[in-house]
């Protein structure tokens, strides 16, 4: 039965349109208490006193918990995927406005909220640092000592390091950059910046912990159930099997719900209260949970007289906020692609993760790559213009092609960079004349292409269970947060076992039942878990054949599974379990050169072309056309894949034009959907989406991940189009009308006054 490449609605479609889909948001347990968090009002300070008297006295309050209470339960109550630096509730110090300081438990969420407002805290305020460049100097230290987790070998050398805000520095050296710059015909240098913005899933973070007899069940809206189990077990000093993590559908994730977020807090509270505890954040509170890194990216390129890139140096500063979260991974795993999808012999990359007194930053749909593409594709466009070359011709000349080494030294394979570029060129009609506008309305076009590596090394395990009637179950810990993972995996199982994908029962993540998976992140699932699922289904198929032989059925015939079981066991009984682990090969980067021959199991490629109209009197931008193209190998379900491409592009459109967290003295001043503008239905430009003809030979049936690729090109394509239209360069996101108008006025020699 041909299940691959089939367009059909996702498995849970009916449950979603009828409002019956299961989310943690919906869940209530008998005897459950509601937790509300009391948060820091200062960006940096030593905790002098927390007064919970009035809160505890409020009728209906069950308990008020501070960091010191948790320290009695968990002696080292610090968590995090890369660094064990984040306390469950603040201890000794607070490091950002909005940091959890205490929690109230009550049987009614309104009472918990009211009580949280009655808590007061006094701090000895310390100087704060917000800017990633300012944080490079160790004048204000966010953490006294670095506390890397044991998980990652390449972070171990950082243990105990003091006197710095640099959580991780990654360096890559390929060829001889200094020599190449000295020999270059032309050298260009620019700086690009990005803002702090947020995921804002509409199901805000929510988790419930239910205590048992020296064990815990955690129900959570989380993208990494296996990690949550391991990390909670570590905090309590338990074996993994005492923590059960269950994850239903997610009301959005986009990277915000990776690793531990609320889970450690609800776990500690539930153990203290010995009752189930639920914490559901409000939309406002999401602004104090996790964000996207603001960045400063200094990029410099040297060219020969033919317009070929000879050298590129990249310095990237990632503003990680008060706790490392996965920032150090972003710094390295995305850092090594900072030179872009170009064939350059001499490359240097220096990438720095910095602590500051802001809400922590982590992974947001692209794991740092959109910030890099913003820089290198803006820079590339500027170079082409300075050289008087067509930006597409310049890219064609310098683009990295399969078979050539990427900056890391890993040879590019199955990365359709040229195909994505050419798809954009063809769709927008790059070579054809177009209406450039007139008077105060000017039009221009821009194009941009980005490249991303997958997070490696990572492990996925899958189990396929064939029942005695031939019906099939799939057990996996990949989380379906709207990307359609369950549906794609059901198609893979269906293809191998010759059943309809709709008839495959995909079991939701439950760590007591579903096997290990590193996490649903970085567009890794379809490749990693997809391969594991395929192998597990093939294992089940082989075992069915063996069972048929045991039953004395002649080999080479195609008995339905139900008949095999019946023949073997004499009735409808038994089952066959197929299992598989998938761990792609990986070579860690050399500690000195940052190079690796096998740095990623696959590459993601995405790009955008934009046509914009700029109002030169107001700076207003109108997107007339937005074209997205990506390489997802051979799509398993093209219809679902296209919605991923389109959705990612629109999300990035928000980060490009409007979204920015505003800070005043460390306090977020626009923590609501009223003041933080995300794209609505009226903001969607005419769009076209293309999945280019490609194949990932090592992927399941030629497929690979796509969740992030649609974000890569959008921001620089628009900035490049604005430059094309009116001759000004916006080097900092978001590209607001004010920013464009200011740039236009500077160009005209009559700059606007600053605020």
């Amino acid at each position, binding site marked *: 039965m041909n299940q691959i490449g089939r367009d059909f609605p*996702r498995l849970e479609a009916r449950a979603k*349109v*009828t*409002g019956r889909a299961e*989310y943690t948001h919906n869940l209530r347990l008998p005897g459950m208490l509601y937790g509300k968090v009391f948060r820091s009002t200062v960006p940096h300070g030593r905790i002098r006193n927390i007064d919970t008297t009035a809160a505890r006295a409020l009728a209906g309050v069950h308990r008020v918990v501070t960091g010191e209470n948790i320290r009695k339960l968990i002696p080292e109550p610090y968590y995090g995927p890369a660094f064990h630096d984040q306390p469950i509730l603040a201890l000794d110090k607070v490091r950002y406005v909005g940091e959890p300081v205490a929690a109230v438990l009550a049987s009614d969420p309104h009472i918990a909220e009211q009580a949280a407002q009655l808590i007061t805290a006094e701090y000895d305020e310390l100087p704060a640092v917000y800017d990633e460049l300012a944080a490079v100097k160790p004048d204000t230290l966010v953490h006294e000592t670095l506390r890397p987790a044991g998980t990652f070998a390449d972070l171990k050398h950082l243990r105990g390091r003091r006197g710095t805000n640099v959580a991780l520095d990654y360096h890559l050296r390929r060829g001889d950059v200094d020599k190449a710059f000295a020999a270059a015909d032309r050298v260009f240098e620019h700086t690009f910046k990005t803002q702090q913005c947020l995921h804002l899933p509409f199901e805000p973070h929510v988790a419930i912990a239910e205590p048992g007899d020296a064990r815990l069940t955690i129900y959570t809206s989380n993208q990494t159930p296996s990690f949550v189990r391991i990390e909670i077990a570590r905090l309590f000093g338990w074996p993994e099997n005492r923590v059960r993590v269950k994850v239903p559908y997610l009301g959005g994730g986009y990277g915000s719900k990776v690793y531990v977020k609320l889970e450690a807090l609800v776990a500690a509270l539930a153990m203290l209260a010995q009752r189930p505890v639920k914490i559901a954040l409000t939309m406002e509170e999401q602004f104090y949970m996790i964000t996207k890194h603001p960045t400063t990216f200094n990029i410099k390129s040297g060219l020969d007289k033919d317009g070929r890139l000879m050298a590129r140096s990249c310095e990237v500063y990632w503003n990680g906020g008060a706790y490392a979260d996965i920032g150090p991974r972003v710094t390295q795993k995305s850092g090594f692609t900072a030179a872009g999808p170009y064939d350059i012999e001499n490359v240097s990359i220096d990438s720095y993760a910095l602590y500051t007194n802001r809400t922590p930053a982590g992974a947001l749909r692209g794991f740092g790559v959109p910030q890099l593409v913003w820089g290198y594709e803006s820079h590339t466009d500027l170079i082409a213009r300075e050289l008087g070359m067509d930006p597409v011709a310049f890219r064609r000349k310098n683009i990295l092609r399969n078979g050539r080494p990427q900056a890391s030294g890993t040879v590019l394979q199955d990365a359709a960079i040229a195909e994505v570029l050419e798809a954009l060129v063809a769709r927008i009609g790059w070579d054809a004349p177009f209406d450039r506008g007139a008077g105060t309305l000017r039009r221009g076009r821009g194009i941009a292409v980005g490249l991303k590596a997958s997070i490696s090394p990572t492990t996925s395990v899958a189990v396929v269970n064939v029942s005695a009637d031939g019906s099939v179950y799939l057990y996996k810990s990949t989380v379906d947060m709207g990307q359609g993972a369950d549906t794609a995996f059901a198609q893979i199982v269906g293809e191998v076992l010759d059943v309809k994908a709709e008839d495959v029962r995909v079991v939701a993540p439950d760590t007591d039942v579903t096997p290990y998976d590193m996490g649903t992140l970085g567009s890794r699932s379809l490749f990693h878990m997809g391969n594991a699922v395929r192998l597990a289904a093939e294992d089940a198929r082989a075992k069915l054949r063996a069972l048929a032989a045991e039953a004395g059925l002649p080999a080479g015939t195609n008995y339905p599974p139900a008949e095999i079981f019946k023949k073997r066991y004499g009735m409808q009984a038994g089952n066959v379990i197929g299992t598989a682990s998938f761990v792609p090969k990986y070579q860690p980067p050399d500690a000195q050169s940052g190079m690796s021959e096998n740095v990623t199991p696959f590459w993601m490629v995405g790009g955008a072309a934009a046509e914009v109209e700029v109002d030169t009197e107001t700076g207003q931008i109108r997107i007339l056309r937005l074209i997205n193209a990506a390489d997802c190998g051979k799509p398993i379900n093209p219809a679902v894949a296209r*919605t991923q491409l389109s959705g990612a592009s629109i999300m990035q459109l928000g980060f490009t034009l409007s979204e920015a967290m505003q800070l005043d003295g460390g306090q977020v001043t626009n923590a609501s959907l009223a003041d933080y503008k*995300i794209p*609505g*239905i009226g903001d*969607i430009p005419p769009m076209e989406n293309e999945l280019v003809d490609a194949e990932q030979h090592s992927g399941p049936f030629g497929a690979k991940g796509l969740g992030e690729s649609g974000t890569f090109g959008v921001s620089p394509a628009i900035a490049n189009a604005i430059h094309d239209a009116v001759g000004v360069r916006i080097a900092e996101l978001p590209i607001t009308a004010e920013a464009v108008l200011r740039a236009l006025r500077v160009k005209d020699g009559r700059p606007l006054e600053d605020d």
Partner: protein
Amino acid sequence: MSARTINFTLNGQAVSTAIEPHRNLVELLQRFDLFGARESCGQGLCGCCTVLVDGRAVSGCLYFAVWVDGKAVTTVEHLDADGVLSNVQEAFIACGAFQCGFCTPGFVLMCQQLLKQHPDPSDEDIRHYLSGNLCRCAAYPEIVAAVKQAAKTAATRVGN
């Protein structure tokens, strides 16, 4: 705060309950195990909590529960009460007009109302009418396609 007894029609059934005046419509519906209306932004901006009260869409997060006294409340769960999806629901599935699905009930209810007022809506009608519903997965192009497809099929059945 003391509870007040209210009587209203919920998805076609007469019901009665006692509820405190500070609770909103979303909390009221949860007491009846209805979770399709979801509080997300808490400011009436995202539309995830959309509910029909006397046939008009309201934001359940900003609508006090006691206000439904004597009124008829319809939630997304009622649209397939007879076991058959509404044409809007069918069109949302056919067009892939959602990803995570959290905002979907609100969009579905709003689209039911949209098609009652504009049986053959233009793109502009659709954008205007749905400007109070947000989708963070940004399935907007697919939602517009779904509304048009639903308009082509039979007239909407539910919405009081």
